[in-house]
């Protein structure tokens, strides 16, 4: 089975409150924030590995392959390399930047990559934590005319690898959909819970550690030899025009800090007489 994971390089999401607005509102400045892989994409890599390996022995079929693709600056190769250290096989980097992309263009470019790579599955994050759009997976599925499931919190691959049952985290519960491959799946946080992925190879009794896997040094060294092909975005032959236009950026209105109350009695009194919410 071949899996394609799109991965976006984003500014450190845990420090997103340190971004600045530059050039009179024309730019978001992320200087000083460590660039990281979008966490949802890291989860997509983890979940994809769980689909193709035996979790217990970490053995994999020779024919199975995981390719990581990114549209971003040259430096995004570092983030792809990390995904290869987790167990990805190869990487593709198409040079671009956030200002020259929108969700529609990313999806159209991905459709071209799919045409070339012919994966059985595209597994991607439900949202990039910088743009927070939550759109690429859905658009890609429509462009490819592939069945899809967004917000995946569980995946169960059939023994014949022809279908996958996906649990989708939605308002009010969990919807299960059965997709016939090839398909697009966007993953949510809980996809990296210990038993969220089943593939008929990993023993049912086996539980993964919570979260995306750590990459031990030997894997990091091994990943250095794995190929990452870099090319201009234009080499995909996509129309680079955008369907949306960002005019300016601003910081949100600051919320002024309040007061500390000494006990529950004072809290209740303030909520009644000052805030008038009780």
């Amino acid at each position: 089975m071949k899996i394609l994971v799109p991965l976006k390089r984003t500014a450190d999401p845990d420090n997103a409150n340190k971004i600045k607005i530059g050039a009179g509102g024309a730019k978001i400045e992320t200087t000083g924030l460590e660039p990281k892989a979008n966490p949802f994409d890291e989860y997509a890599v983890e979940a994809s590995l769980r689909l193709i390996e035996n979790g217990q022995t970490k053995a994999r079929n020779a024919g199975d392959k995981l390719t990581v693709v990114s549209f971003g600056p040259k430096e995004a190769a570092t983030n792809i390399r990390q995904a290869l250290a987790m167990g990805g096989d190869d990487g593709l980097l198409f040079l671009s930047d956030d200002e020259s992309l929108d969700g529609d263009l990313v999806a159209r470019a991905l459709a071209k990559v799919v045409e070339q790579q012919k994966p059985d599955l595209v597994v991607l994050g439900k949202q990039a934590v910088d743009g927070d759009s939550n759109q690429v997976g859905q658009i890609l599925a429509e462009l490819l005319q592939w069945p899809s499931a967004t917000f995946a919190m569980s995946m169960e691959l059939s023994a014949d690898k022809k279908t996958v049952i996906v649990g989708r985290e939605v308002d009010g519960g969990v919807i299960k959909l059965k997709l016939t491959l090839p398909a697009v799946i966007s993953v949510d946080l809980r996809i990296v819970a210990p038993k969220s992925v089943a593939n008929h190879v990993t023993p049912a009794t086996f539980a993964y550690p919570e979260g995306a896997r750590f990459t031990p040094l030997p894997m990091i060294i091994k990943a250095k030899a794995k190929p990452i092909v870099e090319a201009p975005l234009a080499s995909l032959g996509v129309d680079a025009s955008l369907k949306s236009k960002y005019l300016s950026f601003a910081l949100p209105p600051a919320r002024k800090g309040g007061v500390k109350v000494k006990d529950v009695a004072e809290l209740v009194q303030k909520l009644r007489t000052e805030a008038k919410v009780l």
Partner: protein
Amino acid sequence: MSKILVVAEVSAGKLKKTTHSAISFARLAGMPFDVLVVGHGVGAAAEELRAYGAGSVKVADDARFANYVGEVFAPTVSEAAKGYSVVVVTASSFGKDLAPRVAARLGAGFASDIAGVEASGGALTYKRPMYAGNAIATMQVTTATQVVSARQSEFEAAAPSGGASSIEKVAAVDAPLAGRVEFVSFDEVKSARPELAEAKVVVSGGRSLKSAEGFKTVLEPLVDVLGAAMGASRAAVDAGYVPNDLQVGQTGKVVAPKLYIAVGISGAIQHIAGMKNSKVIVAINKDPEAPIFQLADYGLVADLYKAVPELTDAVKKIRAEG
């Protein structure tokens, strides 16, 4: 003629409150609008929607729409959207899934999870929170047809405006992908409490509640005496203390109630993104340095296991006094 199509959300035939935020978007955008209802057995929902000032209420009522499957809904919605300049749906899990699909089918640009709309000189300009709400972008969609999803917490539910819009039947359009995606089940979490996104008061608990039992015995009495919705941090959800759909935050639900009480929640960026527009924020945390105190209007440094029962009792007393 510029016109908006509002896509309604129904669940088991019943109109969902999210719809009213999308209607509110249409009113703010200042263009005439129609409403589209796609579902099965949605006659009553359509009837209800006639009172909101829409030109018409379009109804696609068909057994194949009994459960939401994006591949099955998108062709019908896209067909009905032809001729409209804007298609809007509220950014619930339904809207987040559907809107980009419709945009793709129409070749339209998409503005996701917007928090504001301004109409000037015939063009619509949107405000979009990015980076967990730490930046607000002002943006436009440049295609003739635009698709928008609107953040429920930023568009107050529209009230009926009287009148009776006409009802128009819309045919279900065949979905070529229907054979390759099969609805298996909906495992619904039933709760008698108000829905998070609609509640006037939200009480959220964190990892510090330590177990499902902790939520039940410590937090729930406060939630219920306040008639509040219950929320949680990701840490509490991941640990399985409460169902997934109670997660508040950047990647969970965004809420903006009159009163938000964060109990034993540290105030990580991702959590704050989901509640910082609440009118009044209360934080109860034993760590005086917890980041949540930086935005709380009222901070109480205390052990929650002592403070929450005390607060519950105090509210009970107030309620008893009437």
